[in-house]
C-alpha cells in the first residue's frame, strides 16, 4: 500500500517534470532508465524461462518475477516513454510510431500489466502445472509490443 502510494507520487512527479519539452540530458537519462527497467523485466523473464525449462526456478520465484514485470509495465505509459525520446536519443531503439500510435502502444502496456497480474495470481495457488498458459500470455505481450515499436539492430 505504502509502496503503491510512493509509486503514484513518483509517477505524478514524473509527469509534472515532463511538460513536453525535455532537455537533451534528461532525454538521454529517460532512455537509460527505461532500458534499465526493460532489462529488469528481462532478468525476471529469464527466471521464468528457467522455470519452463525445468532448470530449477520455483513457483514462488515466478510469482516474484511477475510482480517485477507488472511494476515496470504500469510505468510504461506514465514515466518511461515521454515524447521526444525516440531512436536518435542515446542508443534508444524506440520507434517514433510509439507517439503517433499512442493508443496501440498503451494497449500493449495494459495487456502486459493484465498478463503479469494474472500470472502473479495463478502463482498464488502454487500449482506449477497451471503456470505455462499465463506465462505464454506474458511473453506474447512483450513480443507484440516489440514487433511494432522496438527497432531491431541494423
Amino acid at each position, binding site marked *: 500500500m505504502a509502496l503503491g502510494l510512493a509509486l503514484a507520487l513518483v509517477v505524478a512527479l514524473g509527469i509534472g517534470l515532463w511538460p513536453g519539452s525535455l532537455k537533451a540530458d534528461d532525454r538521454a537519462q529517460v532512455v537509460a532508465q527505461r532500458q534499465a527497467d526493460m532489462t529488469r523485466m528481462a532478468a525476471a523473464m529469464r527466471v521464468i524461462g528457467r522455470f519452463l525449462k525445468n532448470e530449477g526456478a520455483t513457483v514462488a520465484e515466478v510469482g516474484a518475477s511477475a510482480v517485477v514485470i507488472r511494476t515496470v509495465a504500469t510505468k510504461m505509459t506514465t514515466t518511461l516513454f515521454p515524447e521526444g525520446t525516440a531512436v536518435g536519443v542515446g542508443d534508444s531503439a524506440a520507434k517514433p510510431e510509439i507517439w503517433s500510435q499512442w493508443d496501440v502502444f498503451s494497449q500493449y502496456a495494459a495487456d502486459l500489466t493484465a498478463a503479469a497480474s494474472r500470472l502473479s495470481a495463478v502463482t498464488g495457488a502454487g500449482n506449477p502445472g497451471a503456470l505455462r498458459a499465463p506465462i505464454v500470455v506474458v*511473453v506474447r505481450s512483450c513480443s507484440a509490443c*516489440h514487433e511494432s515499436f522496438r527497432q*531491431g539492430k541494423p
Partner: protein
Amino acid sequence: MTGGAGRTPLGLGRWRAVSALAVSLFLSLAMMSGAGKLLAGSRVPSQAERVARGQYLFDAAGCFGCHTDEARGGQRLAGGRALTTPFGIFYPPNITPDPIYGIGSWSDAAFIRALRHGVRADGSSLFPAFPYTSYTLMDDGDILDLKAYLMTQKPVAQPNRPHELKDPFGWRVLMPAWNLMYLDVGPLDTNPHQSAQWNRGQYLVRALGHCGECHTPRDWAGGLDKRRMLAGNPGGDGVDASPNLTPDIETGLGRWSEADLSLFLEMGLKPNGDVVGGTMAEVVRNTTSQLTLADRKAIVAYLRSLPPLISTLPIASRGNAHR
C-alpha cells in the same frame, strides 16, 4: 559441410536406386499378403485431410504474413504490405481463390511451377522476393495440399498493386538468367546418412520455414551465399539484421541449449530473458509457435548439426543472447 545439407549426386543416386528397389519389394510383398487394399486406401487421403495438411503447411511456410496487409487491416491473403528491399518495393499479390484477381483459375501444374520454378501461370518469371528459391525444395504432394487449403479461403476481388522497382531489377526477362545462377530446383533429397528427425528439420528450415531467406547473407544480385548458409545477414529481412543461426560459440547459437532453442521457437523468449521483436516476432507467431513439438525439436536438431560459421555482423547485431 558436414555431408548433411549439400546434395551429393553420387551417393544419392545410389540411395535412390536402393530405395526404389525397397519400395517395389515392399509393394509386391504387400500385394501378396493381401494388404494391398489397405495400403491403397491409406494412400488416397480425403479432401478434408488434404486441406488440414495444407493448413499446417501454410503455417509452416509462413504464407500468411507476406500476402496479408495485417497492419492496415487488409483482407486475408488479398495482397501484402510493402516489402522494402535494396531492389525496390514489392507488393505481394492476391493469392485468394478469386478467379480474376487471385489464383482461383490456376491449374495444379501452374501452382507447382510457381513454387518449384518461380514461373507464373502466364509463363512470366516471378521475382525471388517471393521465396520460391526455398519453396522449390517442397514435395509435389505438399505443394498440392497447400493449394487445396488455399482454395478453401475466401475469394477477394482486389487488384494487385504494381511493384516499385529500380532498373534493371524490375525486368522480369532477366530472371531466367538469375535462376540459372541461383536456383537449385527441388524437391529436397533425403539424406540417408542422417536420422528421420534431422531430415524433417532440414525440410522445415530450408523448404518450408525459408529461414535462410533472412538469415543467409546475399550477394550483390540478391542471390544467397550458399557457403555461408544461416551465418547471419545484415538487413536480412530488408530492415533488421538476422543473427547467425549456426552453433558458433562466440557469434552464433553455440551457447544456447536445445531447450533454449525450443522455447524460443515456441514463444520467442531468449535465454537471457529478452523477447523477440521485428519480423522474427511474426515468424514465431505465425510459424514456429504453430508447429508440433516434434517439428520444433526437428528444427533444433537440424540447426545444432550445422557447421559453426563465424558471423561477420557487427557485435551489436549478433543476437547471441546467451546466459
